[in-house]
């Protein structure tokens, strides 16, 4: 159940779509791009960067995820929450990929080396909805290389 599900999922975007999008980007004037870069929020800049990562990693944006499906997501961890020793062991993190956020919960672990805030990871798992928020439990994760590695 784990190994095959995510990997065989075809990409939602076809190669021809991609070419059109690329040329559209180039057709937007250089001035407009400069202006948008200057006035953009840092969040927007990061979102743009993450869009690139999603495309490269073969993942889909969180905003387009259908419910209760196996998905492949790429994003950064905005927060990581450690549960107290007295409670049920779980590690919670919030993954953000520029289009939406999803709670990632690893049950049974208190900490995972490498899962730290600011880290870019790639997940494969089934996405659900928990009290109005999207969540993924115990996904397969790949850590993207960071500066400290």
């Amino acid at each position, binding site marked *: 159940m784990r190994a095959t599900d995510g990997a065989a999922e075809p990409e939602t975007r076809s190669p021809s779509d991609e070419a059109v999008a690329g040329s559209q980007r180039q057709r937007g004037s250089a001035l407009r791009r400069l202006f948008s870069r200057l006035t953009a929020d840092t969040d927007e800049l990061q979102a743009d960067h993450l869009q690139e990562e999603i495309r490269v990693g073969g993942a889909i944006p969180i905003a387009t995820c259908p419910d209760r499906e196996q998905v492949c997501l790429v994003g*950064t*961890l*905005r927060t990581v*929450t*450690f549960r*107290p020793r*007295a409670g049920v062991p779980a590690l919670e993190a919030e993954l953000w990929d520029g289009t939406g956020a999803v709670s990632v919960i690893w049950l049974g672990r208190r900490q995972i080396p490498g899962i*730290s*805030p600011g880290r870019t990871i790639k997940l494969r798992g089934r996405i659900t909805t928990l009290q109005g928020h999207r969540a993924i439990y115990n996904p397969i994760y790949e850590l993207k290389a960071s500066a400290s590695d």
Partner: protein
Amino acid sequence: MGMTKRVLVGQPMRSELLGEATLPKKIALPVFASDALSSVAYATEEILLVLSAGGLAFFHFTWYIAGAVGLLMLVVVASYRQNVHAYPSGGGDYEVATTNLGPRVGLTVASALMVDYTLTVAVSVSSGVANLASAIPSLNSHVVLIAVLVIAVITLMNLRGVRESGTAFAIPTYCFIGAVAIMIIWGLSRIVFGHPLVSESANYQIKATGTYGGLALSFLLLRAFASGCTALTGVEAISNGVPAFKPPKSKNAATTLALLGGIAVTMFAGVTALALAGHVHAADPGDLVGLPTGQTPRTVIAQVARSVFGGGSPLFYLLQFFTALILVLAANTAFNGFPVLASILSRDGYLPKQLHTRGDRLAFSNGILLLSGFAIILVLAFKASPTRLIQLYIVGVFVSFVCSQTGMIRHWNRKLATEQDRAKRRLMLRSRTINAIGAGFTGVVLAIVLATKFVKGAWIVVVAMPLIWLVMRGIQRHYQSVAVELTPPEDFKVTLPSNNHAIVLISKLHLPALRAIGYARATRPTSLEAVIVDLDTTEVDAVRRDWEAREIPIPLTVVASPYREITRPIVDYVKRLRSENPNDIVTVYIPEYVLGHWWEQLLHNQSALRLKGRLLFQRRVVVASVPYQLRSAIRSVEKKKSTAVGGSGGAGGATGTGSTGSTGSFPGKNDSAPPVQSRAD
């Protein structure tokens, strides 16, 4: 800071002592009348200065102009006595105009009066310093500095309280009145016994700056009359200061006004007569032929004194000194009127609320400081030149005269419409006639003043008054709109928040953070977690290990900070915490260090303050600071307590500061030992 204020201003006074801060008539007369009396010192000079434009021959018009001014003064004094009886609450012209003519006219009067008071201070102090320099000519190069210093001293004396300034200022005024009376009697007796007076400028010729005939002549005469009307400034001060009189307030105030009118007219007539008899020639220094170069001409009253008493006589120096002193004290009258007016205006919402209540010494401290600030600006801008400042002076005074007299006419009309008693009606009719004559006269004079003085400086006032009017209206509209916004609607029910999501912001697990966590847990929120920003990974790891070791029972959330900042990641996280439910709130607990010395505070809490500022703008977010008093704070509190109690810490010192706190709720926390006092702990 506190000690400096005590030394300068004195011990604070309780409100019950306000009754003691009222004045008996013999002290109220000098306090409120010094403005009107002191303008005698420069009114004659102003008339002569204007007439000098036509040459020496025009000086014989002075009699008629002085006569007209004297008559006008008597009319205005009589009119104001009606004001004082009808409106004894101290609102003065402002209250009369607002009640009878509407709030817009009232506000016009208020702005005119505020300009008038500021100029009173500036003109009186400048003229006083000029008179001082007439006695000691070497001061002529430092007039601006001396004027500013004098204003500062008056401000301080007023901040110390009404009663004290009353007594201190009564003596010089009576001395001035006495000295001028002696001078007039002596001068008149000299003339009667055949020793004519000769002033030092009698030999100077005056270069006429133009030929005046027909219309130009009448215009010049009107200008001189308008300048002479500065003698009337100060009459309205009593109507603003009626609450400062001892009861029966109205009657005492009216009597003081009558006394004031009599003394002022007599002095003005006497000084003018002596000036003309002694052939005083006053003009711009450039137009005086025969004046030694570089010498500033003496003021008219100085020249009269010299001609009566003789040049080196001690009486001359005394008179100059008292003149300078009373002019300085005339500025003090404005310090009694302006703060009361500012307090009433701020009660009505036209000025900021800080001007409303009395300060430590039962004086309106903020109003006093505001007035002195503006006056200093004026003195600096016009280089302490009385003649230039007087051009601005008269407009404001006469605007408020006209408005208040017209208001009084309306007042009597209203009263007459319902009054049946024959005797009372007669009194009211008489009052109304007096006020009508007053309104007519002052209206004509206002037109004259505006026409003649506009180019010479009155335009500044004509521009400033509407500006002040607009600012005050703007302030009132703001206060009103805020009040409307804050009033709960009819059917408003307080709803409790359904969920309280709490977070405690920490950077290290030290005593303040542990205290904040404990306090947050005690408030029993719906959800609670500790939040730390991931600025330094090793430190965050250390905090996490510490958090595990201490077995703190709340989750620890580490927030990513890709751009190495604290504020924005936290604000974004707080925004995400707020759910869709509009009844949820997020409480943010921030530990705060409390330090004893101001320089220490610069070194701490900076990011916490920035965070608080940003978070306060978020809706449905409450920010709570959990203080932790460091030793320097405890020491400074105990130091204050021991100086207040006056001894070696008798009553057990600082018990409630909570630094020793409740033991045992924070694992691993040590009680900090009380630094100064030994307690059985």
